[in-house]
């Protein structure tokens, strides 16, 4: 195939694909496929591998039948939260980008120029500074990721607590009703209860 048409076909594919992240690591391809099949026709699911320990999320690329379907699903997932394989954390969807894909054809048939710069070159200092900046940025990104994880952990714990106490409350009420305590108390105090 001509490189340009190959790339064009690839771009078409990109338009039909949704990038979903915030997935639980337990989500399998089948689960994800079923989940999205509710909204449209899924043609393919590809998980994006995470190599670095600091990148927590699991993400996947879901290719739909048409670009329109992909857009609609993304809009729906923005409007109302979709939960896959557990609650309550919803997944996040956005349009896929070319760089998200694993194998992609070359965009242009252009040549890449790379050259070595000697330490004696006058711009060397500048180049070194750029390198240092890159490292600094990477460290910053990692730090933010850690902070984000910490907050997520906190939120998770907090929600767990809330849910547990709520549940205990309901259990208490249920329990009281079940073993007749409520009825006895009702009789004793002479209150009428509304049963639903």
């Amino acid at each position, binding site marked *: 195939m001509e490189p340009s048409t190959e790339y064009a076909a690839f771009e078409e594919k990109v338009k039909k694909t949704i990038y979903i992240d915030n997935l639980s690591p337990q989500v399998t391809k089948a689960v994800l496929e079923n989940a999205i099949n509710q909204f449209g026709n899924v043609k393919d699911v590809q998980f994006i591998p995470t190599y670095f320990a600091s990148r927590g999320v699991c993400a996947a690329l879901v290719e739909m039948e048409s670009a329109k379907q992909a857009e609609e699903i993304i809009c729906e997932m923005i409007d109302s939260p979709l939960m896959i394989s557990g*609650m*309550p954390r919803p997944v996040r969807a956005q349009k896929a980008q070319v760089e998200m894909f694993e194998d992609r054809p070359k965009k242009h048939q252009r040549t890449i120029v790379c050259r070595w710069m000697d330490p004696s070159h006058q711009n060397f200092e500048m180049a070194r500074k750029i390198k240092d900046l890159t490292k600094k940025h990477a460290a910053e990104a990692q730090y933010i990721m850690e902070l984000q994880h910490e907050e997520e952990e906190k939120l998770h714990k907090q929600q767990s607590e809330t849910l547990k106490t709520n*549940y205990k409350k309901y259990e208490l009420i249920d329990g009281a009703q079940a073993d007749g305590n409520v009825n006895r108390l009702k009789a004793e105090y002479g209150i009428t209860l509304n049963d639903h």
Partner: protein
Amino acid sequence: MSTLEEEEENTTVSGDIVFRWGHKSRVGKKNPKIQYYESFTYDGVDYSLYDSVYLWSGDQLLPDIAKIIDIYETPRLKKMVKVVWYFRPTEVQKWLRGVRHLNNELFLASGEGNGLFNFNHLETICGKCNVVCKSKDERNPKASKEELKMSDYVFYRTFDVEKCILSDKFPDKIAGLDVEHFFNRKPKGNDGVTSKSKSPSKCETDNTSTIVLGVPTSSSDNNHSKKRKLQELDVDRTKSIEADSQSIMLKKRPNDRSTKRTLLELDVDRTKSVEADSQSIILKKRPNNYSTKRTLQELDVDRTKSVEADSQSIMLKKRPNDHSKKRTLQELDVDRTKSVEADGQSITLKKRPKLDTSEWFKKLPWEDRIHRARQAGCLVLLENLYHSFTSSQVEEIVLDAFNIKVNAKMIQWSAYSSPHNGQALVIFNSKDEADYAISELKTRCLIIGGSRVVVGSRPSLKEPGNHYPSKYFGHIAIDAMKRKHTMDMKNAVSTSHHSQPNTIAFEMAMEWWTHQKKWELCWEAMYKKHGEDIAKLKARLMGFKKKSRC
């Protein structure tokens, strides 16, 4: 008619808030007892027709923003304004369906129906709002960068209240008014009339005549129009005024108060100094180096023009082309390096024939190979590549830079990846090779495409295998519940669903959404800052390079 009389007539003081009517305009067509006005002063602020204002009704969180299109007083002395609304994106979230919008963007109401305009009591106005239109519609005078920077909000789209759609197109009329009134104000002509005048002469197209903005000496009710003119001068200031041998002089009346306002509204400190004469204010450049720099920085419109000081005039003329050259170098694309980097040190990569012995044998899946390589010490992480590279291009680069055949894989872009930094994992054939590569990258600098400096390092990866699940927060299960409704829960957990708004799960999902959104903004801001840092350094790199050439 003297101003004093008028002032007494028009001033009403209710409590501590001073109100004063401005220029009268017309009477009502159906009911001549209704008096329309063009402007008024309320609580120390001057408002005029077609200003954008904040309106607040006392029980809202945020004020609404609207444009005044009529100002009038009823026979019962009620002061009213007719306003056309601007929508905040959050107000029309339902119909936005995921369309992106700027942080300070508004949508102008259009169409017919509820929500387009209202008649409000004037007292609900609580301040002026600087709303700039950046629509590319030909009827809209283009706003300068400075105006955009100073604006409170911008808009370039309309929201049709009837059809509930967002659109870039502006209809001819909104609420019965010509759409021109909703666009940015046209720059003033020299006829000292109010905004209803139909012949503004744009300063920038006026090459040959002297631009003199004179204020009529008649003490008419032109107080408000004067101030507005001065405000519009602000607008013109940053336009490219090509007045080669002409002068720009602003003559002012010998009136202390308005002189001060001139000084305020002309934003003096920026690029020009204002000398108040008894009769005139002449704008001239301060004769020192510092202001030259500031001029270059802040004359946003055309950075290649310089301001040369004369005693009487401001001349903007083109500087020699070195500045534009810098920009060219900055925006180098890979292909352009061929013409620019013509020294003998560049290595051009050619297409290579497909003879790779390494591809004759079956390869293990990437995950395994990467982990093996990491254990053997041959794995190297290359950073600062272009995102658009493919894995094979990376392999070619390594081959040409180090003369080593490798296997590489570009790391796929995730939601958290830096847009400035493309990364790739490279598997070398031995630890020594990897060491060599890293040390070479450290001591010398490998530059790709003229501006990207490659950084090499040994990455710290996740532990291999599935027995170390990455931490995932957010899924909660209650065991007791499971015991009770095992059947239902099984089904629920294995599938996916949207949740109904009345459940706890929904509320919690909302909490997760808020968290997510907050962090999204954090990441965005950080990467934006990164981009700026990088651009700064790159600019200096380019600057040096240019120097080395000449």
